[in-house]
């Protein structure tokens, strides 16, 4: 992916495409789900991206911000996003209703090298809004189930009400071609039947990992990484097979504005997906 421009607009990467909101509903108190379609049908169908890539979404008068694409390229036509209310742009997005206009440009970023993982085992570890980019990986694996080995999902949230897309994940528990483990830090409902504890307490459930053919995907709040990475290292998964996404401030998404720089690495074009091995060498992160 890296090194070539594959965004929609080949002549001016800054120009958004008009899009409309097809469906939106709340996922938690401060996260909403948005299903979006490009107004130009041809572009909607031919919009090619890979899991882990992001798009810049703009609301007229409010500005623009980057969001991971949560849908999977294996289901073309519609794009899906999980968006948390955080400031100016996200507040404006939250006010939008079905059929309202937004601008979209992209896709940007390197994305996960999922094409090179055929036949491999996949472990997906997500916390909180980390589900946004990793849902794309998960759906991609499920849609192409036969080309992957084992697929395991570990998903953690603070409280049951804060687990985004929980119905979707509960439904996955019914499938027998996937290991799906869910957990909450604390249960304030008294009705939670799954594990209680931080996401690392799920690791003992992963039995008989074959580290050399396993790829791990990690995304979640900053505190989560430290502990999850430790567990993955304990499982002997090679550092360059642990993949994570980094978040930085982004103004352009195309490697020009400089805001996403970590030293001389531009998160928007060199990332946002990095291996643990890459990250260890980033001075500004240590």
């Amino acid at each position, binding site marked *: 992916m890296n090194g070539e421009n594959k*965004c929609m607009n080949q002549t001016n*990467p800054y120009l958004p495409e008009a899009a409309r909101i097809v469906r939106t509903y709340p996922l938690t108190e401060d996260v909403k789900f948005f299903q979006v379609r490009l107004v130009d049908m041809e572009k909607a169908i031919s919009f090619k991206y890979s899991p882990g890539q992001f798009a810049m979404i703009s609301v007229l008068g*409010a500005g623009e911000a980057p969001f991971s694409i949560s849908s999977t390229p294996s289901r073309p036509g519609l794009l899906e996003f999980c968006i948390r209310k955080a400031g100016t742009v996200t507040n404006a997005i939250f006010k939008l209703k079905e059929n309202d*206009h937004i601008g979209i440009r992209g896709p940007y970023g390197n994305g996960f090298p999922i094409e090179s993982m055929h036949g491999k085992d996949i472990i997906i570890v997500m916390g909180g809004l980390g589900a946004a980019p990793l849902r794309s990986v998960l759906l991609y694996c499920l849609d192409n189930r036969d080309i992957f080995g084992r697929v395991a999902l570990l998903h953690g949230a603070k409280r049951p009400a804060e687990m985004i897309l929980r119905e979707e994940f509960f439904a996955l528990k019914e499938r027998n071609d996937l290991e799906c483990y869910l957990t909450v830090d604390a249960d304030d409902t008294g009705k939670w039947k799954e594990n209680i504890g931080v996401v690392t307490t799920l690791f003992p459930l992963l039995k008989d990992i074959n580290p050399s053919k396993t790829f791990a995907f990690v995304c979640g709040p900053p505190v989560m990484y430290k502990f999850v990475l430790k567990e993955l290292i304990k499982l002997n998964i090679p550092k360059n097979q642990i993949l994570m996404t980094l978040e930085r401030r982004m103004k*352009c998404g195309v490697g020009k*504005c400089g805001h996403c720089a970590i*030293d*001389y*690495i531009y998160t928007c074009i060199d990332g946002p997906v990095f291996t643990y091995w890459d990250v260890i060498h980033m001075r*500004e992160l240590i």
Partner: protein
Amino acid sequence: MKIVKLKKENLFSFLEAISEEAELWAPVQKYENKHSFQLIKDFSQIDLKYTRTILPPKKLFLPPTFNMFLATEQGYEEDFSHATKKILFGVHPCDIHGLLILDRFFQHVFDDPYYSKARQNTLILGLSCWPDENCMCKSTNTHIIEEGYDLFFSELENDYLVWIGSSQGDDCIRIKPGFFDEDITDEDIQIYIKWQNERDKAFQVDINFVAMPDLMELKYENPIWEKLGDACLACGSCSNVCPTCNCYNVLDKPLLNKDTSEIGRCWDACTLESYSEVAGGENFREKRAQRLKLWYTHKLQAYISKYGKPACVGCGRCASTCPVDINVQTVAKALEGKDMDTFWNRLSKEVTK
């Protein structure tokens, strides 16, 4: 490469002839000893003896503020009004190297049309120069130029040697063929070589740039950065004047009573506090020292990943601009473990914030 000769007295007539259908921009004295590239209406304004302009040529390709497009729900209207046809005369080697770095940067993976269109519409006419106390291009090896210009004028005694660097440059020469002499004499060559040797000796600053990437790595955690951070005013001027700083911000400016926004762009600087802020008031580089480390990583160690070279072209603008004397020279000296205090002893020792 083709080289021809032009009599000095014909320079302005030549510039006039080629700029009939384009704006001519050239160095003009703006303050005592401070210059600026300006749109030329009157040739007597041009100052051929300038050393450096306050802002580098990047201001012509991506102005400090400009609009990229108008946005409405119905569509988007691109605005390339800054990319007029221009001839930029009087660019020194350091600045041409600066443009070559920006070319690389703005074409890396994605092409930035706002930069590229303006760049394509501008002819670069270089001009030889003589170093002052802040020029460092010999140390950065950007004091001579092999590419990146359409024409390059090297001053001899009564003439200019004119290097023709591109087919557009060649077209310019053909507008006034009578002005140009293809017969370059041995004497001319002698004068030119002598001039080159003397210029080489005239540099007052000598920095070992080759050692800088290693020193940046080895001294990344060194307390010198805290000290520099104490002195830095976080004013952003160093980035604004540096010919290879590219950073910018994007603004959505809604128009009153219309469902229209102007989407604009303005220069930003990593030395400013607001640069690395994200939602909720978090800041990835809260301390001035952290921001200076990023700045000097880009200038002394590496710039774009997979390209890897440091971006300083030795123009000396940081040195002639920073109010508290943080610049490539002083930082390089600090990294080499030399006399820090001569520059920053004004700060009391207990200041560490």
